[in-house]
């Protein structure tokens, strides 16, 4: 009994210490004003994390939009209300699926790459040598990645939703024959920027911050061996996925007035 209690205590201490280190790194990297001369670094990370993720986001968004339209049409047509298809698909994408699925994809595509890259930099003493040259790796390596995730994630999520809606319109309107005017006008009527779109954007901003934070920390805190980097990369994807889904629940709870 006592030993079990002790083990619980040990685990919580380790967890708390890890959380403390993660918070420290995040704070150290973020609190200083970004310098203008570091702008190229940021742009490069926006390219690495954002532009290179566009293809996977576009393809997934299109597929999910198309599937939503197929399934939604099947159900709605029973009640003769297939004209609400556009509205339904758009709401689901903008509020939930857009931010969540693009967050998950972002963790797999960009988060894992960030962890592996920083982990390898640590293993090959690049971080150490940077420190010895009087350059703070938190400023130069970590900060641009954190900012890039913060900037890129909402854009990716919006892109996901827009392409998804386009996919749904192709399937619903052009293929299954939903009346085009109804499809778009119901969407225009029912989707409000402040109460739907903005909340989706806020979600994706939070996911962007959390996923890049996890990725950067796992890379920075890794044990600098090949096993260590492999484990850290896995942890990034797993923790990010869980964090996105759990946070989505709580954000929905808070923002949509339940």
């Amino acid at each position, binding site marked *: 009994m006592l030993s079990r209690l002790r083990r619980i205590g040990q685990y919580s201490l380790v967890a708390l210490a890890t959380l403390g280190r993660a918070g420290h790194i995040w704070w150290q990297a973020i609190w200083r004003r970004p310098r203008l001369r570091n702008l190229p670094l940021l742009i490069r990370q926006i390219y690495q994390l954002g532009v290179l993720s566009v293809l996977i986001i576009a393809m997934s968004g299109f597929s999910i939009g198309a599937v939503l339209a197929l399934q939604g049409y099947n159900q709605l047509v029973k009640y003769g209300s297939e004209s609400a298809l556009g509205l339904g698909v758009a709401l689901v994408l903008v509020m939930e699926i857009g931010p969540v699925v693009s967050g998950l994809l972002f963790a797999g595509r960009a988060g894992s790459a960030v962890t592996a890259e920083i982990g390898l930099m640590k293993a*090959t*003493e*690049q971080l*150490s*040598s*940077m*420190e*010895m*040259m*009087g*350059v*703070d790796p938190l400023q130069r390596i970590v900060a641009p990645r954190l900012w890039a995730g913060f900037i890129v994630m909402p854009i990716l999520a919006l892109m996901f939703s827009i392409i998804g809606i386009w996919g749904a319109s192709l399937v619903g309107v052009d293929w299954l024959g939903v009346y085009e005017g109804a499809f778009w006008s119901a969407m225009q009527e029912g989707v409000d920027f402040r109460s739907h779109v903005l909340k989706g954007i806020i979600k994706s901003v939070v996911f962007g911050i959390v996923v890049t934070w996890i990725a950067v920390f796992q890379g920075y805190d890794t044990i600098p061996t090949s096993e260590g980097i492999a484990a850290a990369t896995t942890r990034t994807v797993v923790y990010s996925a869980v964090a996105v889904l759990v946070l989505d629940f709580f954000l929905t709870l808070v923002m949509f007035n339940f």
Partner: protein
Amino acid sequence: MSDSHIILEKVVYLRGQRCIFDEVSIEIPRGKIVAVMGPSGAGKTTLLKLIGGQIQPESGSVRVDGLEIPRLSRKQLFDVRKTMGMMFQSGALFSDLSVFENVAFPLRIHTNLPDDMIRDLVLLKLQSVGLRGARRLFPSELSGGMSRRVALARAIALDPEIIMYDEPFTGLDPIAMGVIVDLIKTLNSAYGTTSIIVSHDIPETAGIADIIYIISGGKVIGSGSPKELFEQDSPRVHQFIKGLPDGPVPFHYPADDYEEELMRVPDAERLF
């Protein structure tokens, strides 16, 4: 200003439960080549990290130019590090930058020099390590000896007062080794930089060092000029210098008695 550039006084450093340094005191005079030697795992690289302030000692003092390194703020520490160059064992070049950009990196960060001046400086440094022609290559295209030379060019980019070499001779072919030995000597005599070499290659190190410290088991077991050390009769120093497999520093990792262990019934200790 005092004659000693770097002073370590009664430094204690623990890693987990293991004591790496037990009241180690080392003095490094300005403008000299000082070697710190000892068997692998003796904490030689740790020593460089202590001087660079990357890790903090448990107790004791580490002073560089009279500044107490463990007490400095992050900003002060980064300022002190600008006066130090370090050559890592692996080279630790930035893999996403070319050789030229690697050497230019500290200049771009710490100075506001115009591009053409940075270019001249980088070419100058690369010339001194004989790799001006390789400036467009990337670190993945370099051999071990070449990356170490680039790392050296990068370490001296800001004309540091102290250069630290972490295992500069390990794993090099004889020619590359000769090149590095020559470079270290030239840099020291031409610029008067204080050089610290951490190594376990005796002939190369003894050939260029002014003073050698031998560390083993967390303590300094011998120090002096190479000549003095070769003449010393302390058995531990003798064993290390002569490279004898067994002696006061045991060949065997601590274990139970050999005969007894062989005679023991095997299934008592579950081999599987």
